[in-house]
C-alpha cells in the first residue's frame, strides 16, 4: 500500500540546464514537488516544459544541475532507470499499437510482463480502483482517445509510481472525460502519489493543482498557488506581457455562402472514420465552430471541403454552384480556401522556401503565374506581405518552411489563405501547438475576416477557442455532425454532451 508521506520533498530540482544548438531550453531551473502534491508546470510552447520533464524521466541528459528523489541523488540515464526509481510518465502522443488489445499493449511496455491472464486481472483491478474502466481484451484501434489515454495511465499505475508526469493530458478529452481524469488524479494524490501536470489550460490548473511553477524562455519566472490567481493573471505570467482579448464586434450574417447536403465519405484507412450524412449551411459573415476530438472525421471533412477528396454530386454547394466534383484549384478560384491541420507536409512543403509555399495555394488568386511561368517577384512580394501582416518571425522569405517554429509557420499558413480574400475559409485546428500570443492573433484574423463578410469554418479541439470565436457551434463525433446551434446559449457542459459525453462513463467521486 501507498502511504501519505506528508510534506516531505519527494523530488527536488536545482540548477537544471540544458542547451540545444541555438537555444537554451532550460536555464538553471529549480523547484520541488512534495509527496501527494499536484504540481503544475505552466508555460507557452517552447518555454522548456517538455525538455524539463524529459530530463526528469531520463530521456534527456541535463548539461548541468542536480536532482534529488526522496533525499537521494537522482540522475536517470534512461527512462527504465526513472521507472524503477518510481517515476512514470504519460505522454501527449500515445505509443500504442492499434492492432493489439489493451493487455498486450500494456505488456509491451513492461520489463517482465506477467502471464496475460494475470495481467488482465491486474488491469481490471487497477482500473476499478481508480475509476478508469477499461476492458483489457478490447482492440486499441477501436478505443476513443480518452480510452487510449486510460491505457497509458494504467500502464503507469501498474508500476506503483511515486511521481506521475502528465504531458498535456486533457488536449484530447471531452469535458466529461476531463472530470473523470481529474477524479483519478485526485485519488492518486490523496494516496501520496505526486503528480507533475503540464498544461497551458489555465482553468484546469486552477481547479486541480496545488502549486504551479511557471516557465518562460527556459527559466522559472514565477511560482504561485494557482487557486489564488485568475486565469488572466496566470496567462500574463506565462506570456510575460499583457494579453489582448479578441474583439468580435460588428458582424452580421448575410446570404448563404456554402451549403453541405448529405455528405458521405468512405474512410481512407482501416481505422479511419467515415463521414456520415453531414449537412449544414453557412452564411456570409458567420463563424461556424466545429468541435470534437481529432480523429472523428475532422481531417476528412476538411479534405471534402478543400477539394482534395471529391464527393457525390450535390453534396457541396458554394454560392449556389455545385462544386462537389471540383479539385482544390477550381474551388480556390471560386473563393473556397482551406488550411489543413498538419502544417509540415500538408499545409506547407517542409523543404521548400516560404516563397514556394506562398505559390502552393496562392498561384491562382494572387496571379503568381503568367502563361504558366512563375512570377517570382510577385510570389516574393506575396510571401513578404504574409510575413509582415502576420508577424511571422523568420530571417526572410527564402527560408525553408521546416526551419520555422510551429507557431510562426501556422501564422504563415493562416495568413496565406486570409490574404487571398476568401469567400469561405475552412481551418482545421487553427491554433494547435501555437503559443498564446500567436493564437490570439490567429483568432483575431479569423474574426476580422468574418467581419469583412467572409464565412469561416473553424474545426478545433479547443473548446474555449470555439466559444470565443463561433457564432454557431456543431460537434463532429464518429463522423457525424450535430445540428449547429447558436454558440452564445451554450455552456461547456452542454458542448461536452454534444461531443458524445465521456463515452459511456460516469465520473467517480474523488476520495479525499
Amino acid at each position: 500500500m501507498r502511504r501519505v508521506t506528508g510534506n516531505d520533498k519527494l523530488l527536488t530540482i536545482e540548477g537544471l540546464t540544458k542547451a540545444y544548438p541555438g537555444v537554451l531550453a532550460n536555464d538553471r531551473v529549480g523547484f520541488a514537488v512534495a509527496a501527494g502534491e499536484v504540481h503544475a508546470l505552466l508555460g507557452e510552447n517552447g518555454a522548456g516544459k517538455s525538455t524539463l520533464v524529459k530530463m526528469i524521466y531520463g530521456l534527456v541528459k541535463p548539461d548541468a544541475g542536480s536532482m534529488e528523489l526522496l533525499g537521494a541523488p537522482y540522475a536517470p540515464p534512461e527512462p527504465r532507470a526513472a521507472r524503477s526509481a518510481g517515476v512514470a510518465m504519460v505522454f501527449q502522443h500515445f505509443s500504442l499499437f492499434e492492432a493489439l488489445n489493451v493487455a498486450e499493449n500494456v505488456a509491451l511496455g513492461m520489463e517482465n510482463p506477467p502471464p496475460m491472464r494475470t495481467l488482465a486481472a491486474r488491469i481490471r483491478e487497477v482500473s476499478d480502483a481508480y475509476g478508469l474502466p477499461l476492458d483489457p481484451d478490447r482492440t486499441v484501434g477501436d478505443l476513443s482517445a480518452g480510452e487510449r489515454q486510460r491505457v497509458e495511465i494504467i500502464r503507469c499505475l501498474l508500476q506503483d509510481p511515486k511521481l506521475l508526469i502528465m504531458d498535456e493530458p486533457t488536449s484530447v478529452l471531452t469535458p466529461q472525460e476531463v472530470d473523470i481524469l481529474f477524479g483519478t488524479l485526485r485519488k492518486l494524490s490523496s494516496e501520496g502519489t505526486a503528480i507533475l501536470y503540464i498544461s497551458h489550460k489555465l482553468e484546469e490548473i486552477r481547479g486541480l493543482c496545488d502549486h504551479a511553477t511557471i516557465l518562460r524562455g527556459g527559466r522559472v519566472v514565477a511560482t504561485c498557488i494557482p487557486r489564488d490567481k485568475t486565469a488572466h493573471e496566470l496567462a500574463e505570467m506565462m506570456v510575460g506581457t499583457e494579453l489582448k482579448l479578441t474583439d468580435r464586434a460588428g458582424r452580421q450574417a448575410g446570404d448563404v455562402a456554402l451549403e453541405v447536403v448529405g455528405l458521405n465519405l468512405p474512410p481512407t484507412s482501416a481505422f479511419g472514420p467515415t463521414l456520415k450524412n453531414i449537412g449544414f449551411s453557412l452564411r456570409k459573415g458567420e463563424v461556424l465552430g466545429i468541435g470534437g476530438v481529432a480523429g472523428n472525421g475532422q481531417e476528412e471533412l476538411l479534405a471534402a471541403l478543400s477539394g482534395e477528396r471529391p464527393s457525390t454530386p450535390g453534396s457541396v454547394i458554394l454560392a449556389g454552384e455545385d462544386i462537389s466534383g471540383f479539385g482544390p484549384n477550381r474551388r480556390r478560384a471560386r473563393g473556397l480556401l482551406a488550411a489543413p491541420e498538419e502544417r509540415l507536409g500538408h499545409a506547407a512543403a517542409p523543404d521548400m522556401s516560404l516563397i514556394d509555399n506562398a505559390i502552393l495555394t496562392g498561384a491562382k488568386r494572387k496571379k503568381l503565374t503568367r502563361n504558366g511561368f512563375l512570377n517570382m517577384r510577385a510570389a516574393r512580394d506575396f510571401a513578404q506581405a504574409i510575413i509582415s501582416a502576420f508577424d511571422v518571425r523568420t530571417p526572410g522569405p527564402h527560408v525553408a518552411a521546416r526551419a520555422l517554429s510551429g507557431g510562426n509557420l501556422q501564422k504563415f499558413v493562416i495568413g496565406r489563405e486570409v490574404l487571398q480574400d476568401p469567400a469561405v475559409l475552412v481551418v482545421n485546428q487553427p491554433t494547435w501547438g501555437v503559443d498564446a500570443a500567436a493564437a490570439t492573433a490567429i483568432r483575431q484574423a479569423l474574426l476580422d475576416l468574418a467581419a469583412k463578410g467572409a464565412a469561416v469554418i473553424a474545426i478545433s479541439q479547443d473548446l474555449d477557442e470555439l466559444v470565443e470565436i463561433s457564432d454557431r457551434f456543431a460537434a463532429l463525433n464518429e463522423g457525424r455532425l450535430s445540428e449547429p446551434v447558436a454558440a452564445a446559449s451554450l455552456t461547456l457542459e452542454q458542448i461536452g454532451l454534444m461531443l458524445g459525453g465521456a463515452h459511456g462513463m460516469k465520473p467517480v467521486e474523488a476520495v479525499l
Partner: protein
Amino acid sequence: MIMLVKRPTPSIFWSWATPVIAVLATMIAGGVLFAALGKNPLDAIRTIFWDPILGPNAGYFRGQLLVKAGPLILIASGLAVGFRAGIWNIGAEGQYIMGAIAGAAVALAAYPAESVLLFPTMVIVGGLGGWAWAMIPALLKNRFGTSEILVSLMLVYVAQNLLAYMAFGPLKNPQGFGFPGSRNLQQYASAHNPELIARTGMHWGVVAAFIAVIATYVLMARHIAGFRIRVAGDAPKAARFAGVAPTKMVVFCLGLSGALAGLAGLFEVSGPSGQITDSFNAGYGFTAIIVAFLGRLHPVGILLAGLIMALTYIGGDSAQLSLGLPAAAIQVFQAMLLFFLLGFDFLTNYRVKLKGTRA
C-alpha cells in the same frame, strides 16, 4: 565522440561539394582497386581521367566525349525530372531500345526513298517509342498501384529480347549475307544523323541533350508544372492540397523521361551506332541514373556529370586497351562513383560535430 546534427536547412555548399568529393574518393578507391589488380594506380587514373582530354591521342577521344555524353545527358535530364517528383523510372534502358527500334523501323520501311522529312519523322517516332514503353509502368501504377521501379526495370529485359528478335528477324538487313543486324543507316543519307562539325562528335543527339538541359532547367525553376513536380517530391500531401493529381504526375514524369530516352536511342541508332543489332544498347539508360544523381538532379549538374561519366567510359576503354584492365573494373569504378555520392550525401543534411565524451 563524433556526432551528427541535423541541419535546419540543407547545406547548399555541401550539396555541390559532395559530387566533387565523391569523384575524388572514387579516384582513390579506384586506385586501390587497380593496384590490387597489379596495375600502377597513377597510370590507370591518368589513363582514365587525363589522357582522353589532354593526352597524346586526345584529338580522337575528345570527339568521343560528346558522343558518349550526349545520350547520358539527354536521358538523365528526363529521369531527374521524375526523380524530383519521387517517380522512379529505372527502365530508361528499355525505353532507349524501344525508341531506337521504332525510329529505325520508320527509316527501314522508307528505304531507299530519300526525303528531308524522313529524319524529323524518325525523331518523332523514336520519341513516341520510348514514351509508349514508359506508359506501360505509368498506366499499371495508376490503375493497379504497381511499383514503377519494378515494372520499368523488368521491361528493360523485355525490350532487350525484342531488340534481339528485331535484329535477327523483321529488321534484318536482307542484303546482309545472313549476318544479324539491320541495314546501316549511316549509309542512308535521309536517315543518317551525321557528325555536324567534323572531329567534335557533335550530332543532333548532342544538340537535343543541350536543349533538354535548358528546357528542363526552365521547367523546374520557372514553370508551374516544375513547381508542382518539386512539391510532389517534397510533400505528396501538400501537392494534393495544391491541386496536383498524382496520376497525371506519374503520366507526365514517366512520359517525359521515356520520350527523352527514346530520342537518345533514335539518335544513337541513326548516328554513331548506325544499325540495330542485338548488342545495340550499351547501358546508357542505367548509367544515366548515376548521372542524374551525380548531377544533383539539377540540369547544369547533369551536364557536368554526363561529361565526367562519358570520360570514365572513354578512359575505361582506353585503359582496357593500353593497360589491359578488365571491363568489369571500369563498371566497378562507375558504381563506386554512385556509392560514394550517396554515402557522402548525408553531409548535405547533417553536420558532423566532434565532441568530448559527455560528463
